[in-house]
């Protein structure tokens, strides 16, 4: 198995949990974070070989959109979050707190809208808390 496919395999292992996040739950999540509708994020996950996968999260026509993107030519997002796939998996599984990962220097955030990166971090922390809570159910 190549390392590139390892990254895909790891992401696939996450799918059962993400399926739990039905549309209604996603809407509940977004109701709690109305400010999210004015923002977009480019989530970049990489593996040990530097292979990257990009996911764009945002809103289009007032509806939440999540889609895979080319990391070499990504669309604009108000902020970008990069982390190793293993870090992401640990966060989503509730094994690692999002803030702790940032404090351990495991996450990089880039701001594209003039706000400090840590401003985005603090908002995303609350979002990940809620996401993990929903996925645990």
């Amino acid at each position, binding site marked *: 198995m190549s390392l590139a496919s390892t990254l895909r395999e790891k992401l696939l292992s996450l799918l059962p949990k993400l399926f739990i996040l039905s549309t209604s739950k996603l809407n509940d999540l977004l109701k709690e974070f109305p*400010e999210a509708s004015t923002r977009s994020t480019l989530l970049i996950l990489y593996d040990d070989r530097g292979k990257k996968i990009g996911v764009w999260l945002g809103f289009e026509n007032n509806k939440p959109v999540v889609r895979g993107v080319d990391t070499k030519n990504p669309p604009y997002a108000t902020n970008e979050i990069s982390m190793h796939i293993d870090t992401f998996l640990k966060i989503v599984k509730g094994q690692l*707190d999002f*803030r*702790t990962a*940032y*404090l*351990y*220097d495991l996450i990089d955030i880039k701001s594209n809208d003039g*706000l*400090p*990166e*840590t*401003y985005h971090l*603090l*908002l995303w*922390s*609350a979002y990940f*808390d809620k996401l993990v809570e929903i996925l645990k159910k």
Partner: protein
Amino acid sequence: MISILVTSGKGGVGKSTVAANLALALAEKGLKVSLLDADLMDPVLHLLFNVNKERIREHGKSLLPLKVKINEHEIEFMGLGPFIPRGVGVALNYEKTTSFVITLLKFVRWSGDYLIIDSPPSSIDVNVKLFKELKGRARAVLVGEPHIFALEDNLRMLDLLRFYEIDVRAVVLNKYGFYQGEYVKYVENEYEKLGLRIIKIPWDAELQMGFKPELFKELVEVVIT
């Protein structure tokens, strides 16, 4: 809003205690007070205010400060303490540290008459960033204990504060009476030679983890006039 830095060249001298009590003493005077715990590596003010894990909230492009109540007085409060897990090591590099400082200083919807800033100890780069942001428009209180090491560290801090045109209103000699010896007088003389007003806060075990705003009335007058 007038910013007041509570700072020190040395850690562990009671900077946070002074900041919290100064904030409460100002509030007791009827002033609206905001308090920022900018000691990012070792935040403790949330413990004094008994603030547990909180969710950050936003209004527009600003974060909303928390509201804490002490002795029936409400104070606006922000810092990293309530938002990061307890006991987790903080391994922030310079960029991340200064980004937090800017977020908490400029992107929080502060509304106090006074913003008390509990700054990190020592003349380190993050303090320089803070001083640059507040250059020419902030007042400061330098906190120390009456002993030689604190004096030496505070001389360096004072030099930076004055270079960045921060108006140093006083030096607080905290835990006064705890240390004995000729050097106590020597320390006081050294500060006096530098034109600093000395405010002595007596050693009081209860004060180290609590509030005694009556001990800070003189300091209040010095920072608001």
